[in-house]
């Protein structure tokens, strides 16, 4: 190690330079990993910031699907799902459910009639301590194919430049199908009449280890009654929340859960592409919503319906969205839980 040919002073100086280089290199590698040299990297911060509405961020609320109402109930598995996944939740039985009806808007004060896409957050708990979380929407497919495209869509739709959306649609033609759905799909006057779809694909494993890529949906038991947007606009600002509260007070509301299995070659990585209608579906159970609670003090408030929180027997697929959603939802959760004072609970001693 010692280099006798060099003078001790020079050798010490060289060693100090070497130490400085090693430390600087370590710090630089850390900064690079953190993305500080990569302004182009799509971070959860950028994704969440792009969701901010022109009216300003709804402090203390979810950064998207900001307006919602909690529910509790049960999921009754009929046992058929065990053919697809060994997750306990598919074993015949009743499991407690916590969920949230919501509107796909970043504005917590949006008028219910103005929001085209409605959603449902769902958590089913099983006695083995596992939870299955899902966040679904009523659209049959997603507007775009990739998280990067979704970010660009947010940026394009936020700009005043009228050509931005045209340019975006040129680069992402898949959005045309979503636009057609948004224009033509009937609106309903109740969350209880809406169908909710996972859109993203996931992989189920059965007890023999066989894996299948699936999507799932909740089909309403209530008959959907189409209502024109003009009629909905005449209703109260929170008509959906009031309607579901009164409706569930009058009696529990039901949805059937179906799991759709992809054929080989189906677009499992692209939620903007629906799978053909003839794909195998398995009816795995029924969701019953028994109680509605306002979000402010409700049990869904501090739950992040992260779609990657899955029990054993399920995992994420090659669909890139669940990871992006998980990262962005976590960022949103960290922000809003830190802003709880901007969305105060009415009962200050409320226990979760």
């Amino acid at each position: 190690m010692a280099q006798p040919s060099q003078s001790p002073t020079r050798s010490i100086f060289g060693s100090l330079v070497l130490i400085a280089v090693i430390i600087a290199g370590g710090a630089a590698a850390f900064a690079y990993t953190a993305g500080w040299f990569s302004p182009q990297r799509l971070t959860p911060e950028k994704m969440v910031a792009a969701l901010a509405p022109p009216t300003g961020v709804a402090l203390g609320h979810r950064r998207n699907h900001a307006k919602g109402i909690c529910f509790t109930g049960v999921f009754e598995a009929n046992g058929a799902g065990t053919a697809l996944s060994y997750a306990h939740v598919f074993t015949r039985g009743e499991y407690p459910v916590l969920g949230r009806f919501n509107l796909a808007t970043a504005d917590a004060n949006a008028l219910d009639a103005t929001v085209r896409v409605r959603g449902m957050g769902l958590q089913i708990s099983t006695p083995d301590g596992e939870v299955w979380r899902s966040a679904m929407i009523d659209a049959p497919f997603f507007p775009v194919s990739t998280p990067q495209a979704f970010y660009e869509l947010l940026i394009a739709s936020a700009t005043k430049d009228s050509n931005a959306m045209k340019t975006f649609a040129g680069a992402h033609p898949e959005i045309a199908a979503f636009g057609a759905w948004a224009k033509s799909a009937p609106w309903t006057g109740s969350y209880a009449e809406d169908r909710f779809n996972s859109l993203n694909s996931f992989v189920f494993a059965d007890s023999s280890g066989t894996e299948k890529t699936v999507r799932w949906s909740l089909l309403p038991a209530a008959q959907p009654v189409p209502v024109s947007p003009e009629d909905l606009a005449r209703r109260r600002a929170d008509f959906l929340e009031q309607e579901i509260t009164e409706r569930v007070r009058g009696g529990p509301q039901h949805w059937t859960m179906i799991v759709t299995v992809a054929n080989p070659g189906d677009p499992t990585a692209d939620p903007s592409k629906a799978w053909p209608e003839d794909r195998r579906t398995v009816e795995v159970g029924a969701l019953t919503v028994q109680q509605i609670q306002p979000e402010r003090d409700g049990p869904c408030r501090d739950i992040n319906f992260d779609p990657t929180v899955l029990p054993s027997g399920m995992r994420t697929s090659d669909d890139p969205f669940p990871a992006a959603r998980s990262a962005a939802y976590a960022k949103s959760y960290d922000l809003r839980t830190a802003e709880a004072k901007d969305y105060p609970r009415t009962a200050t001693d409320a226990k979760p």
Partner: protein
Amino acid sequence: MIGTRLRFTPLQRLLHWVMAVCILAMLFIGVGMLSTVRPKFLTLVSIHKPLGIAILVLTLIRLAVRLLYGAPPLPADLPEPMKLAAKLSHYAFYVLMIGMPLLGWGMLSAAAYPVVLFGGVRLPAILPLSDSLHTLLWNTHFYLAFVFFALVLLHVAAALFHALVRRDGVFDAMAPVSTHDEVARAQ
């Protein structure tokens, strides 16, 4: 005490280097996972949680081994401020190695996120659901990670300073294999 030992015991050295790799990986995974929405986010998170618990367990073992075997004495001619810095840095490392996994586990518990280890093993929540606790623990976990990395850099700089400049045997005491004649240390 065992004052005559010039090097840490082989078990202590093994623990040190295994944990060095784990902790460096942990810090890089931590800042890396927070910087992306790509699928590797999930991979990184799924390593971060079990690795954190592994570090917690290894630290408890290491602490017991340290209390049992002690540490070789620092060179007598080491200036007092450097001796103090060495001692304090060891305390800081133990506080962080135990505290960071507990803060992480606590912040996940306070947000009702499941803590899943390799093989699908689930850890129980150690705190109730609470937005204020989550925020406090998340911030502490986040900022202490940078303190931790700064401490690692300082530690590496000091180790190299002992190895290359002072050549006083302090680095050799923890080196995986002996690179110096141990009598150099005994003076």
